[in-house]
């Protein structure tokens, strides 16, 4: 399992055998039951996770209405920079949608990772570069793309998630009510 994490890290930087040992010590396995929170509303994010099994969703509670804006699955990292970086309470909630297994690293241990690995800082920079671009594109899509287009894109990007997620969460992500999503699905299956 840690081998998968190291493979993902090696897509960004070169890691020596000694550094692999260190990574193994810094990340700890943690299990979450379906419905558990990786980060609850108002809690301060103190960990970064790497998913080895399961799916989580990111959402906000907007006056009682849940708005889902992202999903992460196997081989993705999980965190909330907005809470983790300034260490302020999180508005955003991260919840397990299946039983999940994560490798988690604490804030202090992440500093170790950055300073002890020769290219640790570079890894951190490359990840935030990627997150920055991805998030902004995602945001633009939310404002400019139609629900149909968002749904089609979601299916293209995550063909496996369509099977694993309930329609409720997909509708929330697309930005429509579940009934409207079934209508969209029907229209798309006809055409």
């Amino acid at each position, binding site marked *: 399992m840690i081998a998968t994490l190291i493979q993902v890290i090696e897509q960004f930087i070169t890691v020596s055998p000694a550094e692999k040992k260190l990574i193994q010590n810094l990340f700890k396995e943690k299990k979450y039951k379906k419905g558990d929170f990786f980060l609850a509303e108002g809690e301060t994010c103190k960990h970064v996770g790497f998913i080895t099994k399961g799916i989580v969703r990111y959402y*906000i509670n907007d006056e009682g209405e849940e708005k889902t804006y992202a999903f992460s699955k196997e081989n993705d990292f999980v965190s909330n*920079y*907005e809470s983790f970086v300034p260490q302020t309470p999180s*508005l955003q909630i991260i919840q397990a949608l299946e039983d999940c297994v994560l490798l988690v690293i604490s804030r202090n241990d992440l500093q170790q990772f*950055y300073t002890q690995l020769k290219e640790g800082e*570079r890894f951190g920079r490359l990840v935030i*570069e990627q997150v*920055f671009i991805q998030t902004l594109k995602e945001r633009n899509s939310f404002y400019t793309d139609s629900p149909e287009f968002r749904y089609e894109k979601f299916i293209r990007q995550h063909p496996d998630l369509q099977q694993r997620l309930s329609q409720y969460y997909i509708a929330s992500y697309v930005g429509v009510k579940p009934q409207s999503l079934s209508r969209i699905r029907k229209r798309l299956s006809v055409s």
Partner: protein
Amino acid sequence: MQEKLIHYIKGIITVTDDELEKILSYFEPQEVEKNELLVIRGQTSQRTFFVGMGCLRIFFITEDGQEATRYIAFENNFATALCSFISNEPSLEFIQALEPTKLLSISHKDFYHLLEIIPSWEKFYRHYLENAYVNNTNRLMSFLTLDATERYKQLLDTHPKIVQRLPNKMVATYLNISQETLSRLKSKR
């Protein structure tokens, strides 16, 4: 002006004198007039700008043709069309001076060269990107979750300088409200 940049860098990372000299050698001084545009939409080959004196704003044009201001940089802050700077894709944003402004700027190429030759520059850049990301996301959240009055109040709490120093028109584009609404909010207080 260089002193300000040195102070800023040393506030984030530890560098040797040699490294600092190397870093500074890639920054070029520049002066721009009020209202002058430093970056326009569609432009590639970005630079990042450190404000020594004056003020820059980063804005984009919304679908209905309105200017929306994403970020305002006063003295001792960096301003960059970041998505374009990172990806080398054409910028969707503009950068404009709101006052006569003195800058130090560095090209994308030289900035990334520093990442190769000065290890701690990675930390500097990570720090910059993480904070820019957090700022942007918090701003976006404020548009989703706060109404105009709450946003104005938050702005007074967190960045009073924007309201004190800039014309109403700019403050309105920053809050994404009309100038009339802004005047109403101001007179209420």
